């Protein structure tokens, strides 16, 4: 028996370095920039449990809510860069804050090393199924003729997108701030607003024939509604692309960065994560690695500057 154990131990010791050159010295903390129960939280907790399963590392999820992830990234930027503190957030609030009040934000994009993207939130513009407009352009015309359409939004970039369209067309939109996509859907269904931005929550109501989508607000059309054109395709050169992504404090040792990014990639490619992301977000897992994520954030910063130029 003893021999068996020592043999197994020896095997395990030999096998371990073959899997990864780097292993954490204790548990890894994955900070979530939002409170418990949101999309980021659900995705983050599943990603953590999938990563610990494939690597055997202890990954502890901690919620650090505040300012759409700003509180968490602020703390992350000064955490020790040993690969044992990671943070998951959404691109849009970070890019907006870096654009609008760069002096007040205690970090820049350079304050972090990036591990990769997790998923893209697909944002659509919906209207009641029986509304007399089928596209954003038709909503613009309707708004001009009817003294301003009420449009619900739940994030600043969505509001800016509508203001951009408004500035180009003189539609006279009256923009109503909503707490969430769900509240936007509720107000569209109840007939309290003429259109609203929603991220996925509208799909069942669309299938039931209660609402229709008049545009995709992303740079691409949505996988579940390939016939609905994007805002850009309808002639307004603007989009919003909120990506969920994972970052670490800048200055991560190279082997740690590689090991973590690989572990995250393996977890995202697993059947479980693909399935969950497909079910909750109606999209595939993000496939950007460390370098591509950084490039995407740089491009996003330029897009945000354009959004705010108006």
């Amino acid at each position, binding site marked *: 028996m003893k021999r068996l154990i020592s043999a197994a131990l020896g095997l395990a010791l030999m096998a371990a370095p073959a899997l990864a050159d780097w292993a954490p010295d204790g548990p890894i903390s994955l900070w979530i920039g939002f*409170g*418990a*129960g*949101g*999309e980021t*939280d*659900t995705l983050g*907790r*599943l990603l*953590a*449990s999938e990563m610990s399963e494939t690597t055997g590392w202890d990954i502890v999820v*901690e*919620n*650090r*809510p*505040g*300012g*759409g992830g*700003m*509180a*968490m990234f*602020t703390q992350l930027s000064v955490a020790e860069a040993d690969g044992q503190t990671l943070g998951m957030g959404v691109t849009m609030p970070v890019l*907006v804050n870096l654009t609008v009040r760069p002096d007040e934000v*205690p970090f820049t994009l350079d304050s972090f090393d990036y591990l990769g993207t997790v998923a893209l939130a697909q944002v659509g513009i919906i209207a009641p199924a029986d509304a007399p407009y089928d596209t954003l352009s038709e909503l613009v015309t309707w708004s001009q003729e009817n003294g301003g359409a*009420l449009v619900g939004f739940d994030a*600043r970039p969505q509001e800016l997108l509508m203001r951009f369209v408004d500035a180009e067309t003189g539609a006279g939109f*009256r*923009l*109503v*701030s*909503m*707490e969430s996509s*769900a*509240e936007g*859907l*509720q*107000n569209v*269904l*109840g*007939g*309290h*607003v003429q259109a609203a931005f929603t991220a996925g*929550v509208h*799909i*069942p*109501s669309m*299938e*039931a024939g*209660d609402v229709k989508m008049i545009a995709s607000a992303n740079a691409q059309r949505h996988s579940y509604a390939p016939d609905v054109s994007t805002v850009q395709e309808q002639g307004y050169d603007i989009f919003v692309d909120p990506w969920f992504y994972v970052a670490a404090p800048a200055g991560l040792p190279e082997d740690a960065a590689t090991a973590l990014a690989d572990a995250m990639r393996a977890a995202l490619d697993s059947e*479980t994560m693909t*399935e*969950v992301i497909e*079910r*909750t977000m109606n999209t595939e897992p993000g496939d950007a690695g460390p370098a591509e994520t950084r490039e995407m954030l740089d491009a996003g910063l330029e897009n945000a500057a354009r959004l705010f130029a108006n």
Partner: protein
Amino acid sequence: MPPLDIILAGFADALTLWGLLFVIVGVVIGQIVGAIPGIGPIMAMAIAIPFTFTLDPLFAISFLVGINKGGLFGAAVPAILMNTPGTPDAAATALDGYPLARSGKPYKALRIALFSSVTGDTASDIVLILAAAPLALLALQAGPVEVLALLIFAFAVVSGLVGRSLIKGLIATAAGLLLATVGLDPEQGSPRFDFGFFELYDGVSLVAVAVGMLAFAEILRRLALGWTAREVARPAAAPQTGGPADRRVSLAEYLSCWRELVRGALIGIGVGALPGLGSTAAAFMSYAATKKSDPGPVPWGQGNLRGIAATEAANSAVVGANLIPLLGIGIPGSIAAALLISAFMIHGIQPGPLLFETQARLIYGLFGAMLMANLCNLIVGQASLRLWAWVVRAPETLILPAALLACIVGVYLSSGGLFGVWIMLMAAVLSLVMTATGFPVIVFIIAFFLGERFERSLSQSLVILNGDPLALRDHPVALLLLVASGAVAVWMRR
């Protein structure tokens, strides 16, 4: 409604040994976390969701529903025994529950709370089962303008109800609303009153304020009392005295509360069907309605059974009704309901208007599990109230430090670090000052909780009405509620 055989098959899926096991484990966890200040069923559900991924969807959701339902009764336990509600939902229960426990009848107080909680919950579940879809459509008719008017009505009721004067109540409401403005404003996204702290961008943590003002402040007050009184082995809660009649709740006593139970359940169902108002407000509105009736031999606020029945029936009725918008149209009515949605979604089920057609069997399984959870709540609650009453018979010197630690750990975990603990301490001090100067703490907390929703409804209404008060003519329900708010304030003036 789907065919009977599908309904029966759904119920049969739930009523299995495994189904029962998951519900019982959920209820036990819920009652424990509900009773410990600072943790609460919401956090337990959020932590449990990833672990339910590998379970059968029905068991996963039954388990979460069990936690949710158990948590509501659990929160009432410390509210009654020690005047320190586990969550704000139970704050109203302490008004009559704590005096009754203090008079030597803690078992009686806990039992009536348990029976009323289960009654309200079951009534609300039955309404949900029979009428989710039509009620959800009805609730959709309430737009931002109507919600704003309803919130103003709730503030008027609560300000008039609690405390010694309406003016002090209104001041507390205004202060609570002011605290709720901390953080990014919903219109422009510019930070307000953040004093350079990013932690305040999402506003002051609700959990930290609630635990600080309700539980932590009470514990500090008792510690100070114990210090001055120099009593060493004082038990944390009054022990049970008197005969068997003071332990039990007789059928006659239960039935004597029927008006409070029915009214509480109706208020809870109404509030629950509208997304985002919450069970704390429902409990207080029910108590307000009850307080205007004749109290009988025991005055209100001095251990009246009917006062406990009114609040517990109402706050528990919110839970089932919160699922009306969720199952009817796919919109969560509360954080707990939003957590259930994410549990549905990771199992590949999109809540929405087609749910009753595509997943009828699962939905009826869920209904079966909910009814089963109510029964388990009753049985587990009966067993555990002995345990709780036994726990708090331990000396204060043992219980109070443990409770303090629970507050700190719970707030640390749920608000993301020591920052939340500092907020909790400040809230506790504020609470002690308010109590000493006669300002009602709970009014402040309710206004603070609903403040964000109030501000958003106000800004939404201003856009929808185009800034024109005369446009209110198109919103008769809202107009009625606004008039009623004024009338209530005058009526309840003291």
